[in-house]
């Protein structure tokens, strides 16, 4: 589903964020991407959703060569992906439901279908009762669940999560991981970047370890 072939990414002249990374993530896998801060985890995720282009190497996502993808086809690529971040990036001047509605409109979803889907997803993440509240009135874990619901609005094939539990205590982090595992059980491919080693060891899933831009361990390769 996601393939990296000898990918290198350099920022400026000297800052090598990724060095010769090759990776094959299969459909339906749940992969933890771990390593210390600055190891290149976020860069790797950004390359997948074409927020960045690699300096060298090729990347295939669902059969598409991301590196050679023309600019006008990038939105179509991103519609196959769901992306969530540590800081959630919710719109604080909108309600929880409106945060999801923004996506529905951008995707051209019909109004009735959008309402149905927002209701369904908020129920899935256990926040239907919070639909009309501002995200600022929610806890960190709840905000992250809203972000996950938003990332699922486009029925993604792949979910990319960058430190989704970074701001959460252990209990809330477990809740979020449980939610992601449920999605994975339904066939969604999930790539989760985290530097939380304890979280990774609890889950018994494939783990790719990055260090200084290189893959130093991969228990599922």
């Amino acid at each position: 589903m996601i393939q990296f072939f000898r990918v290198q990414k350099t920022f400026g002249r000297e800052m090598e964020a990724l060095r010769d990374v090759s990776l094959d993530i299969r459909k339906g896998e749940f992969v933890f991407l771990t390593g210390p801060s600055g190891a290149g985890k976020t860069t790797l995720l950004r390359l997948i959703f074409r927020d960045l282009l690699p300096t060298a190497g090729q990347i295939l996502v669902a059969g598409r060569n991301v590196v050679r993808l023309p600019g006008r086809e990038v939105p179509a690529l991103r519609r196959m992906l769901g992306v969530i971040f540590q800081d959630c990036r919710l719109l604080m001047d909108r309600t929880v439901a409106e945060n999801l509605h923004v996506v529905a409109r951008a995707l051209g979803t019909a109004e009735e279908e959008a309402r149905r889907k927002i209701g369904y997803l908020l129920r899935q993440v256990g926040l239907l009762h919070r639909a009309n509240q501002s995200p600022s009135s929610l806890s960190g874990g709840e905000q992250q669940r809203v972000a996950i619901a938003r990332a699922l609005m486009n029925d993604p094939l792949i979910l990319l999560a960058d430190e989704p539990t970074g701001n959460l205590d252990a209990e809330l982090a477990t809740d979020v991981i449980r939610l992601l595992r449920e999605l994975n059980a339904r066939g969604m491919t999930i790539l989760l970047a985290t530097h939380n080693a304890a979280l990774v060891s609890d889950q018994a899933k494939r783990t790719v370890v990055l260090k200084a831009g290189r893959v130093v361990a991969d228990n599922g390769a």
Partner: protein
Amino acid sequence: MRLPRLGALLGDTLVNLRRGGWGGLAAVGAIGVCSLILGCLWLLTVNLQAILSDWRAQFEVVVFLRDDITAEQRERLRRWLHAEAAVADVQYTSKEEALALFKREVRGQASLLEGLGENPLPASFQLRIREGHQTGTALRAFATALERLEGVEEVLYGREWVDQVGRLVSVLQVAGWAVGTILGGAAIFIVANTIRLAVYARAEEIEVLRLVGATRGYIRAPFILEGFFQGLLGGGVALLLLFAGYRFVVWRLGLAPPGLLGLGGGRFLEPLQVAGLLLTGAVLGGAGSLLSVRRFLKA
């Protein structure tokens, strides 16, 4: 574009305009000032061109003939004038007709006619000149050629007037383009910066939209429409001020009261020109927005 999408787009634009605050007003003001100055220049040019056009329609060159011209020379001259490409029409006024005309014009001032003795007024040809030949250079060349012909005493036309009005209109047109270009650039710059603030204020939303696969067009459209409406508003304000200023000048000069957009003491912009001025403002606003959003989305 489907109607619900268009409705949502207009809704987004109105919300953005409301959120724009002082920055939005600055953009409207910048486009308003620019459009007002352009409108003034345009109005002035339109009126001068109207004057010039009216005057050109009545424009005559008068060829005064020598008293000792023979009938044969006069006929030769008439044939020459008829054959000349610059001449649209030729009228002959004899010495007697010139005197009769003069007497009609000075009626009531009989003392002017006393002591005239022999008729001092010369016979003349009055020539209507085709519009393409009414430039100062063409007329000068034509008059010089005429003056060399047998039996011609003098050739008169409003040479200075032709040159001056022609020059003034040319200068105004060039100035209009120059000032318009500079002011247009300034207005685009101000709008671009104002919209950039709005873009930054909505950076998170734009980021979310990018990530879920919204097209660039979808993300840009509300901002471009916002700039377009700001421009339209600025152009509208400028137009109102221009019309008020025009009515004031007409009133101060004591000219006949004009219709809303019509003729009278002067000439206001035609409906199509009014639309053009509004559209100029709107295009300036839209272009400023596009510039700003393009730069942001490139990053």
